[in-house]
């Protein structure tokens, strides 16, 4: 058993030097851009995936919104790779740290809001009041909409952190349970192994989905405000 259940979320260190930069930079080594027409298999699959993501995400945007293509593609690739690499045993997932996710969510959200306020001030402010509300409710509704606007970055960051952290915690707990049950009730440990299998499959899906959701929401805010 590790020191405690949360030891795997501590920053790995060597001689007291945190290795966070290496962990964040490592996924970039897995993406290999090339100028050739014929690549090896992994490069061509990467190219095809990136083209798919680009077409999926950016066709609904205006010309102004499409200047964000590189940013959003990088975002979804970064989050997907980090989440997928974290499913491996003994791996550290940077996206479990709230600091990283807040660092990604707040600047992007604020950029969309500021863009909306700068270029379409009236429309952005008009978004704060849904259509067709009865007149007595207007002051309260504006306050509520403002609060929901300000909660967007926090929701983005905490959603990603909580989902990935919960998945990892569940993995650790079930692994410990299986180990202990191996010496007492063997059949229960078989059941927990089956649950682990299902959970890992789920976690792989969650890794991809969370990245997608994050990027999709940022692109939605962009679309509203561009």
């Amino acid at each position, binding site marked *: 058993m590790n020191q405690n259940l949360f030891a795997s979320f501590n920053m790995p260190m060597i001689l007291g030097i945190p290795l966070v930069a290496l962990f964040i930079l490592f996924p970039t080594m897995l993406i290999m851009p090339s100028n050739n*027409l*014929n690549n090896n298999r992994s490069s061509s699959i990467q190219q095809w995936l990136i083209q798919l993501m680009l077409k999926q995400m950016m066709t609904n945007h205006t010309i102004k919104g499409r200047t964000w293509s590189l940013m959003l593609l990088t975002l979804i690739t970064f989050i997907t790779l980090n989440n997928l690499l974290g499913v491996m045993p003994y791996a550290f997932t940077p996206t479990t740290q709230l600091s990283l996710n807040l660092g990604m969510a707040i600047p992007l959200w604020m950029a969309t809001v500021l863009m909306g306020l700068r270029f379409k001030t009236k429309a952005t402010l008009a978004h704060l009041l849904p259509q067709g509300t009865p007149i007595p409710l207007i002051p309260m509704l504006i306050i509520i909409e403002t609060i929901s606007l300000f909660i967007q970055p926090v929701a983005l960051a905490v959603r990603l952190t909580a989902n990935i952290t919960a998945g990892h915690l569940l993995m650790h707990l079930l692994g410990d349970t299986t*180990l202990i049950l191996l010496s007492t009730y063997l059949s229960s440990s078989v059941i927990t192994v089956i649950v682990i299998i299902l959970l*890992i499959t789920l976690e792989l899906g969650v890794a991809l989905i969370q990245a997608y959701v994050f990027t999709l929401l940022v692109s939605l805010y962009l679309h509203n405000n561009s």
Partner: protein
Amino acid sequence: MLSRIVLSAAATAAPSLKNAAFLGPGVLQTTRTFHTGQPHLAPVPPLPEYGGKVRHGLIPEEFFQYLYPKTGVTGPYVLGAGLILYALSKEIYVITGETVTGLVTIGIYIFGIKKFGPSVAAFADKLNENNIALTMEVSYRQRLHMVYKEVKNRLDYHISVQNMMRRKEQEHMINWVEKHVVQSISAQQEKETIAKCIADLKLLAKKAQAQPVM
């Protein structure tokens, strides 16, 4: 491959870029000059189509061949089992809950690779097949361009040599003619010529005064 032409053009245009290694990986990719020396003797051996053979997806075949003369077929397996048991018994590797999760995760990966590997590989190959003809065409045209450039270079050299010889001959001849003409004018002849020029000029001046100014 298209970048080769760009790189050679950039190298001839700005040789100082060859030393710009500190500008970062992105710039380095475009400014690093390859193939600056003489090309190897043709035909260049083709690139291998498949990578090195691996056993169990992890260990290269050469390792097994290396141990075969001394320990036979089971040698590397005994070595591997011994290392694992050593690590376990000395608690260099501790069996924790993470071990169970890790074993199950790797099991899932192996299952996924075995089941979906060939279909994904076939899909990746299908992504590439339309581009082979294009690539060969591009490569052929690149080589044609290189040959054309080289031949033109040689011919230009001969032409410039010829031009230079002609120019030198002309200059030499002009200098020789000038020198001899100047030599041949003696001092007496020079005085006579200058006096005649002055007389002619006076005549012209008189004639010019007679005419009205336009």
